[in-house]
């Protein structure tokens, strides 16, 4: 955090100055470790074992926050008797080895049958769509669950959890993670001593947790710990995702993502969502609890925002004009289609996949297959110039004169040259005012896409074709500034939504609660409704922090409804009183009969803690006064996920797709539901028990540096930042340096099945070797900011060229935080010799297209 979010880290230091203990768990010693009370190095890719052992410790020593756990989580809920925990093979009940997917019906709560498992299955031969649960829990048929509040019933979630994690012991942590018993005990003591009524513990993570073939389950592991310890919805608690781009949260909320519509509404699926009623039927049940039952109002308001008066009850509000998805269409699946030559056109909008995405060679070979490519960026990034100075030109794999890709480079406007909102990592929207005009041909994306839309609609204006109806009927009449730029405030107002009829016609909506499913309101993203409450741009509020309470609610605007902390009902006890005076945040005011406190209460404001709904009541009315998780279908925090996940209802350890270590828990080596792409451009290093893994004996992990930004498009082109960190380097321990004759300041060549890259050597104790299962495992650390091209101030080989593509099945994120490699002294061969050098490694390891891609690990001895 000190490296990549330095200014946010000041608050960790403030907490430390007030007595907080800071523990840094990371393979690498960083600027964070330097000021932490304790640094715990562990093997990249082993975290679920550590998290699982913490869960085991919390349960077995009875350190969980019992009142919180019983009242606010699903610990007491009974699960279907047919559910079977992970077995000796390493899978939960319902697994189909052929397709690598689960039938999740046995995972369900007792008495709550599953009707549709959206996204879990897919057409033959295709990867499943995955899940899209960014703002809510998964669907339940109803909220009438059976509970045993003594937590003793063997079918209850708490007992399933206890049994599942019993084998995650301190010994296993030492064996798998390389973390000794003393270090583990200190973490156990710290998190349990600092949780409960009086104290809270926060967890902070970033892509070191997400970029794994079991990435979602890492986060689930932290959720379980925080729910058991009562640290969700309370000040000083929570799980903080540190996101790395200025509006990466915003681009998820208003998604430039294939599987989502704005506000975490799913994209319609082929065969499932032929019309609006089947869409609603599959995404929620009117009998489940909470605010997701209003999805109809959110969807119809979105369609009204997009299609205006052309969207009517008679035409399903234009729902049939939306395209359908039927599988994984994420960026890596698209890459495979590019390599196959079926993608013709590609827009790159401030992103540099030639350097920033896994398997850079495949990315560049894919782009060389395109008919046309549009690159919009501030600088001439490597993804725009691969056709003349990419690494494949040097090796002879590509020849400029043979690349048929037509490339348009359009310069983009900088953040000071346009107005608009970023959504930061805390869900806070902040409006930027425009300072100056962009230079030359530089334009904002707002300008470009508006203009592109105008052109497309002009060219299709007379089209009789049904397929053009969506574009023709789109609302696209934004007011323009004098320079032709659409007014960003008008777009933000459309996102917020308006009353379209009635007494308030034309007025801005102040809350998504006002959205209707009858077409009388519109709004482009329901969770952002309120950003224009009272007709005021709330995101532009800048009351100085020093003039406000510590929550600072009048700086910017946070979704939903300016709530700064989600699920804050849980900061009070079941009776609505603060758990302690130290940790008071939101509470029930008996005199006023309202929830009140430091923040906007995340609960129906006048619903008393004692309220109990009539059995069977669905929607917000079905929430009891002690159901703090208002977007969950049963109002509770999920220790166990009866639906919504594709790879198991509980986190369980699998080794990364590439690992030098055998999974000690069961036969299955790596996530059996992981998404893999076996093909010549994406070869995989072998892992045990497959032969050949000794050729790539080291763990390799990638990361960022303070002085650079992702693929370098906004940093390697700046002289200041390039001077601070000029050259690609690898971090290795003195022990590994001795073993492989690596000299500090000299060169090393790092090799995988994909390619070899060269880097300057930094011999450092920052990457300590670990003793794993009785042997020493070395880890190689690589910052991934550099790329090969002729336009940046500094260039160098790209760490992402080393990495293959294996994905988490839920969200299709790549496993770029843990892979295997070989490392050798000296520079890599150049030209065609590089290909021969890599081929020799492949041959020694016996690598074919199927290596590392056999879904189910065969029994010992059968390989």
């Amino acid at each position: 955090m000190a490296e990549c979010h330095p200014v946010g880290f000041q608050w960790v230091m403030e907490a430390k100055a007030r007595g907080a203990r800071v523990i840094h768990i990371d393979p690498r010693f960083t600027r964070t470790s330097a000021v932490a009370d304790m640094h715990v190095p562990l093997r990249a890719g082993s975290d679920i074992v550590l998290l699982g052992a913490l869960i085991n410790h919390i349960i077995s020593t009875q350190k969980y926050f019992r009142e919180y756990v019983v009242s606010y989580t699903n610990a007491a809920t009974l699960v279907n008797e047919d559910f079977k925990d992970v077995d000796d093979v390493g899978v939960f009940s319902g697994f189909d080895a052929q397709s690598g997917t689960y039938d999740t019906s046995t995972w369900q709560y007792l008495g709550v049958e599953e009707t549709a498992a959206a996204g879990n299955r897919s057409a033959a031969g295709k990867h499943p769509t995955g899940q899209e649960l960014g703002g809510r829990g998964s669907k339940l048929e109803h909220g009438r669950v059976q509970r045993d509040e003594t937590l003793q019933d063997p079918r209850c979630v708490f007992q399933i959890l206890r049994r599942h994690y019993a084998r995650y012991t301190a010994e296993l942590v030492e064996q798998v993670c390389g973390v000794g018993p003393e270090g583990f005990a200190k973490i156990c003591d710290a998190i349990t001593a600092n949780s409960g009524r009086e104290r809270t513990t926060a967890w902070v993570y970033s892509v070191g947790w997400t970029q794994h073939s079991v990435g979602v389950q890492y986060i689930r592991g932290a959720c379980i710990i925080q729910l058991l310890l009562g640290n969700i919805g309370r000040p000083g608690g929570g799980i903080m995702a540190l996101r790395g781009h200025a509006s990466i949260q915003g681009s998820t909320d208003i998604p430039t993502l294939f599987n989502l519509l704005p506000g975490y509404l799913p994209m319609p699926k082929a065969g499932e969502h032929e019309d609006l009623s089947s869409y609603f039927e599959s995404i929620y049940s009117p009998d489940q609890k909470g605010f997701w039952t209003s999805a109809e109002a959110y969807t119809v308001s979105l369609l009204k925002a997009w299609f205006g008066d052309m969207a009517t009850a008679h035409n399903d509000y234009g729902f049939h004009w939306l395209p359908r998805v039927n599988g994984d269409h994420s960026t890596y699946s698209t890459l495979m289609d590019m390599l196959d030559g079926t993608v013709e056109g590609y827009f790159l909008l401030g992103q540099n996949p030639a350097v920033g995405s896994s398997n850079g060679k495949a990315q560049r070979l894919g782009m060389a297959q395109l008919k046309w490519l549009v690159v919009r960026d501030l600088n001439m990034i490597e993804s725009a110039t691969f056709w003349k100075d990419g690494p494949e030109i040097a090796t002879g794999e590509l020849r400029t004169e043979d690349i048929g890709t037509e490339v348009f480079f359009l310069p983009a406007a900088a953040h000071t040259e346009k107005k608009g909102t970023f959504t930061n990592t805390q869900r806070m929207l902040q409006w930027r005012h425009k300072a100056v005009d962009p230079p030359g041909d530089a334009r904002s994306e707002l300008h470009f896409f508006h203009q592109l839309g105008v052109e497309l609609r002009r060219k299709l204006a007379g089209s009789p074709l049904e397929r053009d109806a969506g574009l023709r009927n789109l609302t696209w009449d934004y007011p323009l500034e004098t320079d032709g730029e659409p007014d960003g405030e008008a777009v933000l107002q459309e996102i917020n939504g308006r009353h379209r009829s009635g007494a308030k016609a034309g007025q801005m909506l102040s809350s998504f609660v006002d959205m209707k499913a009858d077409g009388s309101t519109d709004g482009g993203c329901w969770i952002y409704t309120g950003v224009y409450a009272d007709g005021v741009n709330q995101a532009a509020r800048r009351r100085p922090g020093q003039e406000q309470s510590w929550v600072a609610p009048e700086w910017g605007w946070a979704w939903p409804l300016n709530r700064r902390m989600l699920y804050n009902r849980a900061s009070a006890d079941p009776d609505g009183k603060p758990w302690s005076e130290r940790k008071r945040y939101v509470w029930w005011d008996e005199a006023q009969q309202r929830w009140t406190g430091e923040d906007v209460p995340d609960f129906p404001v006048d619903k008393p803690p004692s309220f109990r709904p009539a059995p069977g009541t669905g929607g917000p009315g079905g929430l009891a006064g002690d159901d703090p998780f208002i977007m969950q279908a049963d109002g509770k925090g999920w220790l166990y996920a009866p639906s919504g996940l594709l790879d198991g209802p509980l986190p369980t350890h699998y080794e990364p797709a590439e690992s030098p270590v055998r999974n000690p828990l069961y036969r299955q080596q790596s996530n059996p539901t992981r998404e893999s792409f076996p093909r010549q451009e994406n070869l995989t290093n072998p892992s045990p028990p497959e032969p050949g893994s000794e050729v790539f004996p080291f763990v390799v992990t990638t990361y960022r540096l303070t002085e650079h930004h992702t693929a370098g498009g906004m940093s390697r082109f700046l002289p200041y930042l390039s001077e601070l960190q000029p050259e690609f380097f690898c971090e290795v321990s003195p022990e590994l340096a001795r073993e492989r004759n690596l000299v500090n300041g000299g060169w090393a060549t790092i090799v995988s099945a994909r390619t070899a890259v060269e880097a300057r050597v930094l011999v450092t104790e920052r990457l300590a070797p670990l003793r794993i299962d009785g042997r020493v495992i070395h880890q190689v650390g690589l910052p991934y900011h550099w790329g090969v091209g002729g336009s940046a101030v500094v260039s160098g080989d790209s760490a992402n060229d080393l990495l293959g593509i294996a994905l988490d099945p839920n969200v299709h994120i790549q496993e770029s935080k843990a892979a295997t490699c070989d490392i050798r002294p000296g520079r890599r061969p150049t030209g065609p010799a590089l290909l021969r050098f890599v081929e020799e490694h492949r041959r020694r390891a016996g690598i074919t297209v199927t290596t590392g891609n056999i879904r189910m690990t065969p029994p010992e001895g059968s390989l």
Partner: protein
Amino acid sequence: MGARNRRRSWPVLGQLTGADRLGRGAAVESARTASLSPRTATADRVVQSVCPYCAVGCGQRVYVKNEKVVQIEGDPDSPISRGRLCPKGSASEQLVNNPNRVTSVRYRRPYATDWEDLPLDRAVDMISDRLLDTRARTWQEADKDGNKLRRTMGIASLGGATLDNEENYLIKKLFTAAGVVQVENQARI
């Protein structure tokens, strides 16, 4: 400058006789330094903004003179950042005024070995033609079971995490209406 002031301007004398006994401040300030003023003091206007790098969302104050950004500083009013910026945020003035920045449209024909010029309007016109052409040829109305698809798999887009919400909104809205489903950004990566 009188004789007395001239004597006082000798650093050692000033250091020994004035308040700055350690010689770290006023005693050692040259006349040239004294005559300088920060770019922030002479700016025509100050515009409140947000840092474009990571997602902490540090407040920035953008100083503008003669319609040029002359300096970017941390905004002390921000309850998030309290005026601080990291090395990247501190360098963001150079991001904007970078001499390496490309400010005109560049165009590479298929199989060509170098860039050529292209007017911006012409580029947008050509890109819309390419999009419509690919879309028409790769259009999928339904799958083999007759389920509605209404899309093209011939066009994809990547990017958005560095862009504004309003921009992402128009991108998603336009592409979805056009039947382009392979719309992705760094949030997946």
